[in-house]
């Protein structure tokens, strides 16, 4: 039944071609370990949702293979569905039902007996802070409440693995923080594995154990957040020295973790792998030679820079478009009622 490896998600050369020509996902391979939070980052249209849809059996891969929770997505789709939970990118709850009814309805679809699902649904609504609104129709929910309801619905079958497609899109800062809290909690308290996509790079940096950056359907970089950041060449240390005439470059280069030094008059721009540890060593070295340090600054590369480096796009350019798109989606939904 299980395919004999320890990965909860094992993807090999997964490809999805839409309409015979658009390669939305193009030969992607990666593994996810049980119990980790795996982040999938990429610009709009990179293929994130398409990948999630294939892993959750909503789309048939054009080629390649994927096992999820030990089951092949093609040959055992129902076993995959039973073992994972999904928080989709769109709001999918039924507007005419209450929050509680929506969660219990999901329970019915997973075959959780009503006697159990009623308790569970209440527990989950409590977890996402919707207890007070549990008996209100979803029509009356705000965007943030809807998103949290999706999270509660996705957890009703107590899955081993939860897929979250942009769980914090369109949420305000407090709600976003709360959602990240739930996500961390799910990992820590329940040992759940989380696979998520997001556009909030700083937050992904803080919460994900590993991150894959995907662009044009291909994974361009995969690693822990610190690996990704150090792949940019390390931290930047800027040192100012009072003595303008002497070139200290050879001296600084003696420091073991220093990779590159550039001099601008009395200032030095140093690239080092562990900036906060390298900086004191550099200061000591300069001082023992009798020079005076006038200023020092350590900057660590941010996820933004990593993202920019590997996708050639800045996330901020996209943000405006996304907010607009989200508003339109909500408008369409409202128009229905």
């Amino acid at each position: 039944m299980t395919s004999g490896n320890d990965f909860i998600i094992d993807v090999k050369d997964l490809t999805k071609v839409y309409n015979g020509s658009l390669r939305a996902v193009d030969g992607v391979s990666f593994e996810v370990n049980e119990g980790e939070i795996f982040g999938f980052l990429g610009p709009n249209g990179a293929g994130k949702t398409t990948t999630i849809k294939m892993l959750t059996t909503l789309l048939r891969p054009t080629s390649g293979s994927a096992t999820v929770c030990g089951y092949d997505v093609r040959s055992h789709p129902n076993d995959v569905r039973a073992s994972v939970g999904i928080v989709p990118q769109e709001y999918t709850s039924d507007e005419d039902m209450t929050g509680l009814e929506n969660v219990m309805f999901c329970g019915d679809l997973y075959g959780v007996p009503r006697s159990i699902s009623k308790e569970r649904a209440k527990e989950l609504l409590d977890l996402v802070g919707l207890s007070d609104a549990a008996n209100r129709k979803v029509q009356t929910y705000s965007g943030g409440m809807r998103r949290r309801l999706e999270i509660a619905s996705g957890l009703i079958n107590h899955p081993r693995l939860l897929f979250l497609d942009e769980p914090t899109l369109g949420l305000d800062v407090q709600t976003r923080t709360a959602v990240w809290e739930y996500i961390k909690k799910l990992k820590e308290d329940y040992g759940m594995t989380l696979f998520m996509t997001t556009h909030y790079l700083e937050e992904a940096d803080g919460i994900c154990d590993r991150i894959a950056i995907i662009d044009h359907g291909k994974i361009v970089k995969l690693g822990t957040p610190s690996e990704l950041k150090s792949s940019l060449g390390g931290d930047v240390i800027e040192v100012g020295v009072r003595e303008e005439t002497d070139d200290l470059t050879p001296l600084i280069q003696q420091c073991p973790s220093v990779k590159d030094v550039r001099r601008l008059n009395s200032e030095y721009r140093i690239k080092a792998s562990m900036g906060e540890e390298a900086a004191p060593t550099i200061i000591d070295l300069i001082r023992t030679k009798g020079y005076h340090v006038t200023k020092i600054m350590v900057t660590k590369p941010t996820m933004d820079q990593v993202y920019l480096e590997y996708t050639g796009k800045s996330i901020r350019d996209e943000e405006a478009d996304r907010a607009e798109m989200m508003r339109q989606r909500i408008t369409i939904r409202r128009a229905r009622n």
Partner: protein
Amino acid sequence: MSDNINSSDSDSGQKAVLVQKPMKKWGNERIDRSPLHGLWALTNRELEKWYKVPVLLLLSLIQPVIWLGLFGKAFNIGSIFTDGSFNIPGLNIPKNVLDQLSAQLMQSTFGTTDYFSFLAVGMLSFVTLFTAMFSGMSIVWDRRFGFLDKVLSTPVSRGAIVMGKILSSVIRSLAQAAIILVIAVPLGMDVGHFSVLGILGTFVALFLMTLGFSALFLMLALRSNDWQSQMAIMNLLNLPLLFGSNALFPSSIMPTWLQDFVKINPISYATDAGRQLLLGAPGFASLNFDFIYLAGFAILFTTIGIVMSWRLLTK
């Protein structure tokens, strides 16, 4: 405004996280994995949208009731034969003879002495057909708003999704037909031939008809991506199907090419069975044939509908 709800709510969310006790281990004991699990939940979801909104229920009954009043009472076709204007000049036929004659004429054309009763049975088929047609629409919305994807991502069987739609449509149309029958009686429907078995039989006939049509329209709805094109398809089909049957007029007064269509239209057989069973009218086919034809239609289209829908859902 919604922002206020939102942020005050996220505060309580934070608190909830903090007070949460250490977790029980999560396990999935006692999970129902029978192929029919979730069927009732899916069916009931559709039905709730209908019975929880009485206004909608009433609105959907207005049209058939208007038709009953308009065709059955206002343009009472039977009155052409019975109101006395039908007389042959020069021959002064006594009124009672004339009435008898016209009753016979009515009997031979409509199979019953009043058009209203004739039409009332036709209206049962009408509401059944229209309800079946429009309930297919809901899957277009489900698809549009991601709800269908959510359902598809759960281990509920694809068959249960299709069957839930068909079942809710069938229940709904039979309930609407029952209400029309109840309304038609005080309006003047002839109850002289009513029997429990007759009523049951009529609803079995309607059941078979709506089963086939629900499956057919669900299949059509699943193929279309937007409700406009779905509406267009339904508007294209509903009136021809209705007028090309014996629901409103007996086929004997129709041109032969239309009679041929009436003979293959399942609505004709459901209506015919209803008239035989409720009004004691002579049928245009035998009662046995009515039921065999309807059962064949139901089995054929349910099978095609389920297989096609299932294939569309699993692609």
